[in-house]
């Protein structure tokens, strides 16, 4: 029993980092552009398809395929931001509806190109680590490592570099930041592209673990938004923690409770936390 719980704790943490990478994109986009971009889920799906196509279709080595897919998705995110989301800045509902429209468009295009048949990439790194009865697939460990590095890098970039501090200042107070010389438009476009890239990277790594269908984005964006809100939107390390909390809640929850309610465990957590800390777990009270 202990092995089961420890195993799922570990697995929940790993699965949670995939939620966290989306949550991070959600949090950054929200902080800088004032909208919640649900299309990040679709970007993630697209990232998975691109990686699979580059790797299995064109024969590019997997790590390079992930990098290429990430860059491609960053571009997609940038274009979407300039063509669509530029007009919905700071309007939550309009941004939400446009992003839902964009999801439909992306899914339609993917269906036209790759059909509804699920795609499966070759095994990049098969096999498992066994530590005292606890089993962790090797690839999952790698995915966790990469995502953790990216999240830490993002955190460092936001706190240690001028661009990061500018973004942070902007999220706190747009007017003041603009007066301080932050170029709002460049900053917003940059963050939109970076958030998309995070989603694309998440998709690229996802492709090495699971099968790919046009619907995968929907589940991940919901978990991502849940994670971002759980933590208190705006906090980088909070998104990370939020993703892990949801991942662990699902993993450990389905051991003790019926697995059919798997999606509920994270939600219950979310509701409870919001009731006791309405601005999220790690938020500094705004009032």
């Amino acid at each position, binding site marked *: *029993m202990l092995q*089961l719980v420890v*195993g*799922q704790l570990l*697995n*929940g943490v790993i*699965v949670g980092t995939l939620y966290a990478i989306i949550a991070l994109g959600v949090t950054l986009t929200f902080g800088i552009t004032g909208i919640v971009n649900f299309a990040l889920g679709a970007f993630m799906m697209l990232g998975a398809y691109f990686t699979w196509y580059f790797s299995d279709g064109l024969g590019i080595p997997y790590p390079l395929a992930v990098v290429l897919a990430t860059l491609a998705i960053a571009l997609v995110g940038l274009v979407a931001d300039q063509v669509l989301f530029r007009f919905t800045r700071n309007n939550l509902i309009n941004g939400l509806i446009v992003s839902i429209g964009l999801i439909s468009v992306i*899914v339609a295009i993917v*269906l036209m190109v790759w*059909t*509804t*048949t*699920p795609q*499966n990439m070759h*095994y990049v790194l*098969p096999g*498992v680590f066994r530590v005292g009865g606890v*089993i962790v*697939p090797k690839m999952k460990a790698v995915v966790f490592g990469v995502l953790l590095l990216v999240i830490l890098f993002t955190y460092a970039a936001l706190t240690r570099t001028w661009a990061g501090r500018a973004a942070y200042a902007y999220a706190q107070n747009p007017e003041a930041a603009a007066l301080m010389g932050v170029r709002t438009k460049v900053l917003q476009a940059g963050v939109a592209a970076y958030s998309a890239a995070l989603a694309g990277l998440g998709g690229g790594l996802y492709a090495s*673990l*699971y*099968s790919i*269908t046009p*619907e*995968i984005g*929907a*589940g991940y964006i919901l978990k991502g938004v849940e994670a971002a809100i759980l933590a208190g939107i705006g906090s980088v390390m909070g998104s990370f923690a939020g993703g892990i909390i949801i991942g662990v809640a*699902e*993993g*450990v*929850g*389905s*051991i003790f409770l*019926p*697995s*059919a309610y*798997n*999606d509920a465990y994270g939600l219950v957590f979310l509701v409870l936390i919001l009731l006791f800390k309405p601005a999220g777990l790690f938020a500094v009270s705004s009032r």
Partner: protein
Amino acid sequence: MKSRVSIVKAVAASLGVAALAVATGAYSQNVVKIGEIEAQTGALNTYGWMSSQGMRIAVDEINKAGGFEVAGKKYTLQLINPDTQGNPQQALIQLKTMIEEDKVKYVFGPFLTNVFKGIEGYARQHNGQFLLMGGATQIHYELGKPGNDYLVRTWNWDAGPSGFGTLMVDYLKKKGVKKVAMLMQNDAFGHVAADVYRDAFKKAGIEFQENWFEPGTKDYSAVLAKISAGSPDYLFPGYTDAVLYDIVQQATQLGLTKFWLVRGSLGPALKNKDYIDDYVAYIPKYFEEAEKSEPKVKKFVEAYKAFYKTKDFPYDQAPLCSSSCYDHVYMLVEAMKKAGTVDDVAKVKNALESFTYDGLWKIRYDQTGEEVINFDIVDVQKGGKITVTHEQPR
């Protein structure tokens, strides 16, 4: 601003034109319309989408060959296949349009139980006016009831004497299995399957454990770990490739290496051939083998590649639905020829039940209107060694 105005105008204009198109709906004498009520998009579209793939090829082939002759008159086929999105409301409107506007008398579908239930009430009101030839397991329970003459069940799924449920359990029993754990998606078909096998396993004296997952799940490791702790002999996993690849990979990582009654394709088995021990699949037709031994199958594979301009034939899903639905169209045409009418659905139904169609499949319908079909049990062992058992239900 000007361009925005014109976009809206264009959209408005096309709406208007399309509205006119729906209002007319001319009925041509020499065209037999075939409808299809299936989900083409959405989370549960696999079966619907595959079926329409096969039907489109058949309709195209028949029309290119100049149509077919019934009672001295030449007819061509027209396929009407809107997208239900798995939504009963859309399906109901679509079925009404087919029956009342397009005067369609032959409707294929649906595979989805919720869609079938959504249209059932309306369809019954039109009993005798058309045939509904669907694959939903729920239809099995409706066949032969009074007022249900319109129903024909394509596909023999798990349930009933001509279904493969009992045969599959028998196959497993021969292997000396004591305990099976099911991991099924929590949807309508999942529950129908559980209902069928709960009883079948009880009769066979095999312990049966039920576990459910939400459609859309990708990481099964938690529930698989829980299952693995109970050490079952075989795992009975979900029913589409979209979930099977993930379940099989993650199960083998946890040491669950024997799978039973896997539908869909051999893809997951072959991809994991070094990690599995046994993988018993229900395959309506093992295409990789049949392609070599049966010229008709080879021809179908080539026709498919040409029609959809693809190099890769989807062995994983195509054979399951598209090939049988391809046959269904041909068989229906054959029945119309035998009945000597394209309008009298009662006669066509009788004709349909009177012969065995020898196409890609050997298909016949029993007296209740349920399809009886041959199928293959494909047993994949470690390393990819394959044994095929050909079954022909009575």
